[in-house]
């Protein structure tokens, strides 16, 4: 029965990492869009009745760019991961900065 235990553990791992990447990235991306809308102002943010259209906020644009950079960086890592595993390499996060190492 311990085979099923191994299998369940793998499924749990996939779910956890899947949630961090698969749900986390869209969250960061949508935060970027939200920040960009705040930064752009005007009618991008649906304003309530009687409220004036929002002013642009430069800070919002900065936040948005930061969010998009994070997303792009993770995607770049993802592509590196695909390419690396194709060439018998693996991504190592042992030294925090991701580096390519030979596969174990």
């Amino acid at each position, binding site marked *: 029965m311990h085979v099923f235990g191994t299998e369940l553990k793998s499924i749990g791992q996939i779910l956890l990492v899947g949630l961090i*990447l698969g749900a986390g990235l*869209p969250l960061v991306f*949508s935060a970027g869009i939200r920040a960009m809308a705040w930064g752009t102002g005007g009618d*991008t943010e649906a304003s309530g009745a009687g409220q004036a259209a929002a002013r642009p906020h430069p800070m919002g644009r900065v936040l948005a760019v930061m969010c998009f950079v994070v997303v792009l960086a993770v995607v770049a890592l993802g592509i590196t991961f695909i390419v690396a595993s194709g060439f018998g390499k693996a991504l190592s996060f042992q030294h925090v900065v991701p580096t390519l190492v030979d596969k174990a």
Partner: protein
Amino acid sequence: MNSARTPAGPGYRPGGRDILGAVDSATVILVLVVVVALSFDFTNGFHDTANAMATSIATYALRPRMAVALSGVLNLIGAFLSVQVALTVTNAVLHIQNPDGTPRGDLVSGGGTALLIIVLAGLTGAIVWNLLTWLLGLPSSSSHALFGGLIGATIAGLGWGGVNWVGSGDKPDGVVGKVIIPAIASPVVAGIVAAAGTWLVYRTIVGVATRYTDQGFRWGQIGSASLVSLAHGTNDAQKTMGVITLALIGSGHWTSTTSIPFWVKLVCALAISLGTFFGGWRIIRTLGKGLIDIAPPQGLTAETSSAAVTLVSSHLGYALSTTQVTTGSVLGAGVGRPGATVRWRVAGRMVAAWLITIPASAVVGAVMWYIAHALGGGLLGAVVVTLILIGVSAAIYVRSRRAPVHASNVNDDWDAPAPTEQRPVAA
């Protein structure tokens, strides 16, 4: 195919000459196996275009033709990136290869005809099932079809013992551990991830004008769909590469078990990419319009979930079906958006197709093996099986023309025409 002229290896026997005179029959069968394997690779491509691109097409993030072209190119690149040796492709489910990737000794005597016939019958079963599910517009797993066809042909040819049902029992292996359990778990996991992502995204963008957010999310969709296409090329093309190389080794035309002939990699990459570019519009329609009425944020979360779950699992050694992961993700994206409707009837049909994919392609694979066997198990059998495959494929194609789905009607409303349907935002 230069290597075909310099046969080497223990299994090679220049005997068995036939009507074609100078060419021995095992070589002709080998050519048939390679051609049929590439046809499978092609159906694998157009069956799975939907996984990456259905959501982007449905939300008008990309024009249909543009989407399939992008996916085709990325599949081509992906296939070349997969230099990992995929030779042990059958080891998870069958006992026709040794652990190092060489075929079992008793299958390669006489030019490897016994092995070639099993592979040919298995591939035929896989293609027939892929085409049938395409006709019905059902996204089903090409990998499962391939495994199913090979399992059926192996049972017919070698008996039940030829199939690796549960492996040795100390790690997840065999049909149960490597195929069935992942098949049940992966759509659920992908669905949970996509539902969580969708819920979070819709919470985040509350109050921002839809016109504004949709524009941004379309870009996100294109990015995430591209990642899925790339991952698909690396995952799926190498299965066919493995099968062809196995046939080459079995017939004595290739000996290395640590590398794949370059021409095999080239033709497999081209076949899957061409298939993707051809576009399985019927399946794209089901996945993009049939399950849920997908909006750009949902497209982004569904594809990101698919990419993340596929990549993480292949890192852990589980070759998941991208089809099942994507379907689970799209359903999850529907569940995660408050107020969205999910057409569970359509989802139910898909799940039914998944359940019978392996048995159905196994039955076809087994029947094909028996036909080939009854005809002597040699060249004649192989030719007849190939002709049957061509006939069935032609019949399915003709049937599909009665209600064609193509780039210009792929996005038509799923139910009766609803005039209030969301229109494309000028992009």
